[in-house]
């Protein structure tokens, strides 16, 4: 909420001895290597915690057992070699197979070992099979159900985040130039509007633009039936994208502008900026070289943090707009009590968050001079 959240990662790089490698490339590789390792460990622990929470009531165990029973029963019923057996003999055979398969997959092991097995499954995206839900292509694999939904979520998050981020940074820059103007005051006055989440604005937008004015669709990704022509298809998606993306943007933009504006104002009162101004540099150059450049790491950090909030926050926005992404899949899975899908999507989210943090680190390393000149390094 406050401006502090913008400076989260800056002190993360600490002074270390300049012992290893002298080329920028070597230092970058070393830095990235360390970050990959720490990130991997972090993700593993995060996913492991997720599994622990999920399995506290034995839910993952049940999932695994159900899947084994399904598979074994199927394989025996479908196998022509067993067609002549009596039903009793078949049932016995199934029981035996299930027992041996459970032993093979380690379901009889103590929980400590079992949970490691689950962790490996989760990390390799071996998420099991859904109970009720099926993907659009008819598969019951949780991985496929979720991955199929990912593009829609990416489209919505990406559009909203890019507009939101660049919009707020540039508006904030121009506001910090005219600070004290009525536009500036208006933004400050409007910043509490960000207390309201996106889905909430979504309700109002649906009400106004879909229910009353009838100019934009209530929800969904494309028209029904979807247009054949790719251009029409894209236009239709765009039309459906307007309301959800707008509600995400509206819900965050004023606070974002306010934070950036404050941040830029603080930085533009630094001595070196005053010196640059005194030297008579063009305001544009001052802004680019003396305000934007040193604040770049912070800007990038906040970009990633924004992405993280958007990732998880979109669950309900998607549900409200019937946007066929990951969020609505979770929502449907809750309704259907489809345990594997819920656990699976939690894991996918953990992955997405980790990837975002990792990408952040990468870009961070590119722009942070402390990493480049070798003073920085991962802890």
């Amino acid at each position: 909420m406050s401006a502090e959240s913008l400076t989260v990662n800056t002190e993360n790089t600490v002074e270390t001895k300049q012992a290893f490698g002298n080329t920028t490339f070597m230092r970058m590789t070393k830095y990235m290597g360390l970050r990959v390792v720490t990130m991997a460990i972090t993700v593993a622990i995060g996913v492991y915690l997720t599994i622990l929470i999920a399995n506290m009531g034995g839910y993952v165990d049940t999932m695994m057992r159900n899947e084994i029973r399904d598979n074994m029963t199927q394989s025996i019923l479908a196998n022509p070699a067993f067609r002549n057996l009596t039903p009793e003999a078949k049932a016995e055979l199934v029981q035996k197979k299930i027992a041996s398969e459970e032993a093979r997959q380690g379901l009889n092991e103590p929980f400590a070992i079992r949970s490691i097995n689950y962790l490996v499954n989760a990390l390799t995206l071996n998420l099991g099979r859904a109970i009720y839900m099926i993907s659009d292509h008819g598969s019951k694999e949780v991985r496929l159900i979720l991955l199929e939904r990912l593009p829609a979520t990416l489209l919505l998050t990406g559009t909203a985040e890019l507009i939101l981020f660049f919009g707020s940074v540039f508006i904030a820059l121009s506001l910090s130039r005219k600070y004290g103007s009525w536009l500036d005051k208006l933004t400050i006055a409007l910043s509490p509007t960000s207390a309201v989440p996106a889905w909430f604005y979504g309700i109002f937008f649906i009400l106004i633009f879909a229910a009353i004015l009838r100019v934009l669709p209530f929800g969904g990704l494309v028209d029904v039936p979807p247009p054949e022509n790719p251009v029409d298809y894209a236009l239709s998606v765009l039309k459906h994208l307007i309301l959800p993306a707008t509600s995400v943007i509206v819900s965050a933009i004023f606070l974002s502008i306010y934070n950036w504006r404050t941040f830029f104002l603080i930085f533009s009162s630094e001595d070196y900026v005053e010196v640059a101004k005194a030297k008579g540099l063009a305001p544009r150059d001052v802004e680019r070289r003396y305000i934007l450049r040193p604040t770049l790491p912070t800007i990038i950090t906040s970009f990633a943090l924004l992405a993280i909030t958007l990732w998880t926050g979109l669950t309900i926005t998607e549900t409200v707009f019937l946007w066929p992404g990951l969020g609505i899949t979770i929502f449907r899975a809750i309704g259907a009590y489809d345990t594997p899908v819920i656990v699976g999507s939690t894991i996918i989210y953990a992955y997405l968050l980790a990837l975002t943090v990792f990408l952040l680190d990468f870009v961070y390393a590119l722009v942070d001079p402390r990493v480049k000149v070798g003073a920085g390094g991962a802890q």
Partner: protein
Amino acid sequence: MNAIQNTFRELVRFPSAILGLTIIFFLLAVSVYALVTIPYSEAIRLWRGGEDVWYQNPKYAAPAWFNYFSSVKKPVSFKVGTLDGGMTKTVKPVNQDISTVEITYAFDYTYDTPPQEMTLYFTSKFDQKLPFVSILWHTPDGREIQIANMAVDRRTTYRFSQDTKLQKRLKTDYVMNSLFLEPNSQPPKTVKGKYQLVINGTAFESGSDIDAEFVFHGDLFGLAGTDKYRRDLFLPLLYGTPIALAFGLLAALSTALLTMIIAAIGTWYGGWVDELIQRITEINLVLPFLAILIMVGTFYSRSIWLMLGVTILLSIFGGAIKGYRAVFLQAKEASYIEAARAYGASNLRIIFTYLVPRMIPLLIPTLVSSVAGFVFLEASLAVLGLGDPVLPTWGKVINDAFSDGALYQGYYYWVLQPAALLMITGFGFAMLGFALDRIFNPRLREM
């Protein structure tokens, strides 16, 4: 004390802070009123009640104040009974066994459309012989309509529009139209004025008695309208206030305090403690917050208090720790801490009496603003279908409305009322928080 006074004096300089404070005080007053007038268990009983509790209300009725904004005045629901004194009842003994009971009720009807339904609920006392009633309807234009003649059991329900005999007698499928509309008017117009319902009853035993309750289902109901299950939405709107505030305040307060204490401990002890706390914060960043809440809600319990606990647990290692840490690192080197160390203060004493209190001015704005977020979190969970199953909350109302397609079907009041309350709450806390931030955060003061 002086500091609080000063803060308050500065606060009143911000119009948004005054507005925010007013909203918060109003919400607190509503909460106290709700908790005093409706006990917790009673609220749950009413909210969970079905037809037996809410039979008197129409379904999907918009709030009565809609008439102020509409040119077509729609009928407002009401109910009266002999037991609560709303209907006049006169008992005249005819002889030692037989007595007549006359129940009348007159009401002004000024609306432009006929009501949905009218129902009479009879209760009677007798040993063997059922009492008998005949129901008459007087319209303002002087017509007298014979509604029904029937014997009433201990509990008898009579619904005007479902009486096929009456339909035949009036030669219409819509009883309400012929009772309330001007005959042969085109376009249909209601007859406005005083309507009278007369129930002439006869009891055939001594000690036998008849009571009646007249329930009038209009298109509008009460202050907040009703939902699909006939429940009065005023209950969840009223009772949702203390629940939302409790959730928001408890979550915000405990998260902020615990986060700060953890940051203080980390910076004070340093070394592996600090390192551990930082690593946990990083892992926490990767944990998908909402997804885990969803998992807990689906697998264990949807109780709002468990959700609160998990929310706090997942929030205490949030990004704020890093911000606090930076400030504590500076404070740690301050000379008064050194002095405390010199006189031999214990670690815990330094943390709790010297480090933590120093952060409180920085903490308060964040805390106040974050209440809004937590109030909305509760609503978000409810909208996802993970709301507390027994408690009447704002989010639950929105969820019910959504699952019934309220926006598509035009029941806007159903969504808009809880939404407006949520929004007012959110804005109230956010505005106060922002003003506090500008007061306590000296860097922001001039900006």
